[in-house]
């Protein structure tokens, strides 16, 4: 009996350790704030050898494939900041070593793994803050960014989210949180504007819309934004939401989901999906010969270049919002150079989320440099009142509104054509014309 009890305790201990991660043993105090301010509060310019920031990403678990790439993008930002790159003079902090206003201090990113688990994201954020990071970046999945940024708020540590797109993140009234990526609210409006463009210019005759979404913070919120926009604006312009198809986070097959989408027979399908699920969906679309006129993807799996690698020519004609298209590299020398560094690390081109996470590190580092301090209040003050140069984005800059949302739309519509992500909308930045409607599966080469 006694030995069974010991075993039971061992199981409980093991499970708890695994769930909480090793770092959870250094539990941060959960109360507030005053006593746990960032370590340095100097008003005079601080001179330190190294400025540490924390990055929380899904480095293992279901989204690890994406998390590892995002880490590489952040490392590229770190290398650019810590090195001397006169050819990237327009990129902030590139031409001098480190952070010049802090005695050329080097930037060090401390990475933490949340495994896609919101609880772990929170405890890892607390651990990093306890270690004295000046700010946080991450956490990719909105469901993890939410608790992690809540912890940062509690400690008064700035959190710059790169690619998390749930609009709810910037609706919480947090003072220390900003986000670079367009949220799903902005993206949804862009999707409808794109459909109007397709109808007007290409007679696409798209009227009905369905939403397929992963049943988590990201997906549910994307679906709610479609409902909102149809009700408030686009319903009156002739669009109808004919149905929604949610699916479980760890879905093993999507046969039933695709049958539901088929039965809805919508002209356009909006997808809020990660790389594993969207790939399964495309395979099943082909198997069941489902070909809506347009399939538009929120920032997630479609933007991962592995989408094209895995699906080959089957990946063609899907579209989505993205901050990056390799086809635009010729016009953007800074982006081309950054992409070169990234490719040397990963073997693949950048994608939208990777570029957004890259820029989150640059924004945080530049703000620390301008603030000349590691104090959270000073840094966030700079973040909220500065227009950051971002020559690697088509729009060239980043500026946060009062809620912390980047108000300069960093992304545009891309469509996969012959295995490449072509910019297709707005027209003035397009690298190719959109293909609409998507050809039937049996009419493809």
């Amino acid at each position: 009996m006694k030995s069974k009890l010991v075993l039971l305790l061992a199981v409980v201990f093991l499970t708890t350790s695994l769930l909480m991660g090793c770092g959870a043993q250094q539990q941060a105090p959960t109360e507030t704030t005053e006593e746990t301010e960032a370590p340095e509060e100097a008003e005079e310019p601080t001179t330190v050898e190294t400025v540490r920031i924390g990055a929380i990403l899904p480095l293992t678990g279901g989204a690890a494939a994406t998390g590892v790439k995002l880490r590489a993008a952040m490392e590229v930002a770190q290398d650019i900041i810590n090195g001397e790159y006169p050819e990237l003079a327009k990129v902030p902090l590139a031409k001098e070593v480190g952070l010049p206003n802090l005695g050329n201090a080097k930037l060090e990113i401390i990475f933490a793994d949340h495994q896609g688990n919101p609880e772990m994201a929170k405890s890892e954020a607390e651990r990093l803050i306890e270690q004295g990071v000046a700010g946080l970046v991450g956490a990719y999945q909105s469901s993890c960014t939410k608790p992690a940024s809540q912890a940062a708020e509690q400690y008064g540590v700035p959190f710059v989210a790169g690619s998390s797109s749930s609009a709810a993140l910037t609706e919480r009234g947090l003072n220390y949180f900003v986000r670079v990526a367009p949220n799903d609210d902005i993206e949804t409006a862009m999707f409808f504007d794109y459909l109007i463009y397709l109808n007007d210019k290409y007679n696409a005759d798209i009227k009905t819309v369905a939403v397929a979404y992963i049943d988590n913070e990201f997906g549910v919120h994307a679906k709610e934004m479609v409902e909102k926009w149809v009700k408030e604006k686009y319903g009156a312009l002739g669009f109808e939401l004919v149905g929604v198809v949610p699916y479980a986070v760890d879905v093993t097959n999507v046969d039933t989901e695709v049958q539901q989408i088929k039965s809805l027979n919508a002209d356009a399908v909006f997808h809020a999906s990660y790389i594993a699920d969207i790939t399964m969906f495309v395979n099943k679309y082909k198997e069941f010969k489902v070909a809506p006129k347009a399939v538009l993807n929120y920032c997630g799996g479609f933007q991962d270049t592995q989408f094209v690698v895995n699906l080959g020519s089957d990946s063609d004609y899907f579209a989505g919002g993205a901050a990056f298209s390799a086809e635009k590299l010729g016009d953007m020398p800074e982006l081309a150079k950054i992409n070169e560094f990234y490719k040397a690390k990963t073997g693949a081109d950048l994608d939208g989320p990777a570029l957004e996470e890259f820029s989150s590190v640059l924004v945080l580092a530049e703000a620390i440099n301008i603030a000349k301090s590691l104090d959270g209040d000073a840094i966030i003050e700079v973040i909220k009142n500065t227009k950051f140069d971002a020559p690697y984005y088509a729009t060239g800059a980043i500026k946060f509104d009062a809620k912390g949302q980047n108000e300069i739309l960093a992304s545009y519509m891309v469509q996969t054509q012959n295995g490449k992500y072509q910019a297709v909308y707005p027209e003035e930045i397009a690298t190719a014309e959109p293909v609409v409607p998507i050809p039937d599966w049996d009419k493809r080469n």
Partner: protein
Amino acid sequence: MKYRRAEDSPLFTKLKGEEHMIIAQIIANGILMGFIYALVSVGLTLIWGVMDIINFAHGEFLMISMYTAFWMFSLFAMDPLIALPICTILIFVIGVLTYLGIIRRVINAPGLTALLATFGLSMFLKNLAQFLWTPNFRYINNSMVSGKTIELGSIVIGVPQVVAAVASIILTVAVMLFIDRTRTGKAIQATALNKNTALLMGINTKKIYAITFGLSGACVGAAGALMATFFPIYPASGALYSVLAFVSVAMGGFGNIKGALFGGLIIGLAEALGGYMLGTQFKYAIVFLIYLIVIQVRPKGLFGW
């Protein structure tokens, strides 16, 4: 928000002609998925029945087999169906080595030690796979069956799934025949019934345990090669199916091979039909609800005794 189609849901109205076909398609999908769950479950139930051990690393054996098929395809252009014997033998060997290296030392230890050992092995294999092969999702899109479909009227059935379903039936029958008809199989049964008596009868129970672990590995090895033709391959891919395999085994009856097959079919149909009728976000909830009901009514599972 209310959608135009909500009131047309098959749950609320009589099915129209087209919807009959959709339901038929859903049932076909459910049966095929059921066979795939069964394929993963057969090996699991074998170990459970004979050794009374829950092998938490079962899903990772599946994952290694899927990667083996993938690398055979990528490096040597060997189709997963051709590589099936290699995957089967490899995971058989891994199964035997797992017994000899880990399980043998803890099988007589009290309580949950063996379970914890397999849990540790599962974490090790998952992380090793991520270290060796990165967490990238990989697909085999050009196998001899990939992308091929059979059309029966308006019902579309994927050839890879049909191949996996047929293999699932063959594998289940083969394992049942092996257990029932061969001397080794009878020794496995005897060991499962009472290890000490089997030992007294001259059966080398350690050898039987090693064979059982190997056989379980061989089953999941074959499953991995077949599933690699139509499922994504990544370090956590096995874990998803192993959870449903555990349910399938418990529902069918611990150690009952036929039970694992039917358990898999029930899960496949429940998630497909339930998901379509009640909402896809509930499809796994429905599976687990049915499981809870089954173990309340028959605690030893549908075919348990």
